[in-house]
């Protein structure tokens, strides 16, 4: 019984870290066909922004003067916004090449950059380069470490164990993010256009969808979510420029296991991988947890290469046929 309770409590932070690490990457990959290897560094931007805002490092923005918890929440929202704007900048310059092309058309008379949409390997190289530049630039500008942010809330005691309450609550935030994303994709105009763009880009274009603007918004949304993840994990981590690498592996495994559907895929893979990680880490140790997680991922990729969300789609199609 005690072990069951222990596993249940431990599941929450594991689920949260996988889901939050993966959503931003999943959106950009699923909708734009861009593999963002700088995803970890976008998370790092979120963490750095949170730390700077919380500790009063942002001029003209006295977030550090806010009382109590609102200071932390203010810093986190600020960080998500900053990262979204940063993502927008990256999309306009590197991913779509709109800015360099605008300049080159006026100077050379022709565009020089082909957009990286649906060019998986090319986008990996470009964003990997971006990640290297970002890590060293942050190191040069901000130094090797930034002062952190204290972990809010106290501890949650159960049996003879205890855990930080904040880590458990993160699972709630992760669930909230998934629900919000679901609503964005099914209830908003942007969501409809985004889904139309995935299904058939040229058809969407001919029906009047500005796919370029959809891509732009998608990248900003994915970046903003990466920034939110960085913000949420700022209290738990030591803030240094390389911190994004921790998230990248989890995020990739989750996206590959989950498949192309952002919400369903991330939910299923976060749940499954969270259970596997919790079970093995708790019983056999952290190392065993990592191994088990990767083995499950390999097995799933072998037998369900389209990801867990493809299973759900197949089920739904079968039911439609029966009807």
């Amino acid at each position, binding site marked *: 019984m005690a072990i069951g309770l222990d596993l249940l409590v431990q599941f929450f932070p594991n689920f949260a870290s996988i889901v939050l690490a993966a959503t931003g990457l999943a959106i950009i990959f699923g909708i734009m066909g861009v593999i963002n290897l700088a995803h970890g560094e976008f998370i790092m931007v979120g963490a750095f922004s949170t730390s700077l805002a919380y500790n009063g490092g942002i001029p003209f923005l006295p977030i550090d003067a806010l009382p109590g918890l609102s200071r932390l929440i203010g810093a986190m929202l600020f960080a998500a916004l900053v990262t979204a704007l940063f993502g927008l900048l990256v999309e306009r310059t590197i991913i779509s090449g709109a800015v360099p092309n605008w300049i080159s058309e006026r100077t050379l008379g022709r565009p020089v950059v082909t957009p990286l949409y649906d060019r998986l390997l090319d986008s990996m190289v470009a964003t990997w380069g971006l990640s290297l530049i970002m890590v060293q630039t942050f*190191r040069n500008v901000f130094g*090797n470490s930034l002062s952190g942010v204290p972990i809010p*809330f106290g*501890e949650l005691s159960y049996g003879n164990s205890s*855990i930080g309450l904040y880590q458990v609550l993160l699972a709630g935030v992760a669930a909230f993010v998934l629900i919000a994303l679901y609503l964005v994709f099914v209830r908003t105009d942007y969501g409809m256009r985004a889904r139309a763009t995935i299904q058939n880009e040229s058809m969407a274009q001919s029906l009047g969808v500005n796919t370029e603007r959809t891509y732009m918004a998608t990248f900003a949304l994915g970046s903003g979510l990466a920034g939110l993840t960085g913000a949420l994990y700022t209290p738990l*981590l030591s803030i240094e420029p390389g911190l994004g690498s921790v998230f990248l592996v989890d995020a990739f495994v989750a996206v590959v296991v989950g498949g192309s559907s952002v919400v369903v895929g991330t939910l299923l893979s976060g749940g499954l991988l969270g259970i596997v990680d919790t079970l093995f*880490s708790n019983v056999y140790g*952290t*190392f065993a947890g*990592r191994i088990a997680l990767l083995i499950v991922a390999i097995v799933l990729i072998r037998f369900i290469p389209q990801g867990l969300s493809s299973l759900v789609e197949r089920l739904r199609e079968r039911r439609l046929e029966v009807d």
Partner: protein
Amino acid sequence: MTKRVDRRKFLAGGASIATAGLAGCALTGSGSSDTIKLGILEDQSGNFALVGSPKHKASLLAIEEINNNGGINGQQIEYFDPDPQSNNQRYLELTRRMINQRNVDALWAGYSSATRETIREPAIDPNDQLYFYTTQYEGGVCDKNVFAVGPTARQQLGIVLPYLVEEYGSDIYTIAADYNFGQLSADWVKVLADENDANVIGEEFIPLSNSEFSSTISRIQDADPDFVMSMLVGSNHTSFYKQKASAGLDIPIGTSTAMAQGYEHLRLDPPAMSNIYAGVNYMEEVPTNRNTKEGGFVDRYYEKFPDAPYLNEEAENNYFSIYMYKRAVEQAGTTDQEEVKAALESGITYPAPEAPDGEEIKLVPETHHVNHHMWVMRADEEHNVEAVDDRVIDETFLKDTVGCDLTSKDEETQYTPQDYYEEAG
């Protein structure tokens, strides 16, 4: 006639300025043969920059002090300090460049054991290059060319583990980074536990990429030890201290890796490092007159580097070993590397900042290791650090257990505790 000479002088001057401009940073490399050339390869960027840059800075401080006081035997020190960027491949290239192109008289290089092993066999040993490795490490390197002057795991754990057994009890839970250094350090915990009538009741090795510690914390709570020995490494593992504080895990923790190197007590908010005991030969807070008195080591360091964040354990090791090198060259009367090695093997001592007044730390001739003055440093709830115990701890593993004697036998080996102790392995 005089005019022509002047014009020639002018041309010569212009030519040398042009060469200097072309040569760029190579200017320092083309230095004259009457300087002593030291290579300082320490990480100023990349993963190890946080802990490596204090080593780099303290080396420059020692060199500047020596040069300002007349150099070594009247010769000024010239140094080469390209940035290895925490990249072992680059370390190997730069080490070869230091040896073959710069002809350095002595080399200081590398933070991690992985770096040391990357350059030791392929570059240091084939050239018999005099090499100082200054990081605290797992111990056991018995190599004619290598002077491993940082404290070993047996020395660091050897001061803090007995202290904690005495204070808190005999049940130990070990958490360590899952690679060579962590595994060997955990073996030393077992050996020392056995020597101090204590037992290791649990042990976990954490992958370096891990930064989520709730299951580790829960496993420690289940095992309910008297204290934890932590040999966690790197910034990912630093999260453990924050997370255990937020989970309310209030247990004494002994460590050979936290605080003295990455100054976690200054980087993390209290009370993350509360009740943590570091076994070290040096950290900025070590209360000796040579260190903290006005005009002492700490003052001189921050006077030269006002923006430096911390003066860490390895920085002091670089500092005193450059002075030990100075004493050896003065004694040998030459920079010839074999003769300097022989001089270093003559029982060189130095009044290092870690040692109290009147005491000098000793470089052991047979093992090329140092008998350090070791300290147990404790951080309280506000992260104030105080010394709670200190004494000289000799390097005994190579000297007594292995019987390494480099004065009589030319060796290039690393010994591990598994070879000598049943408890380890």
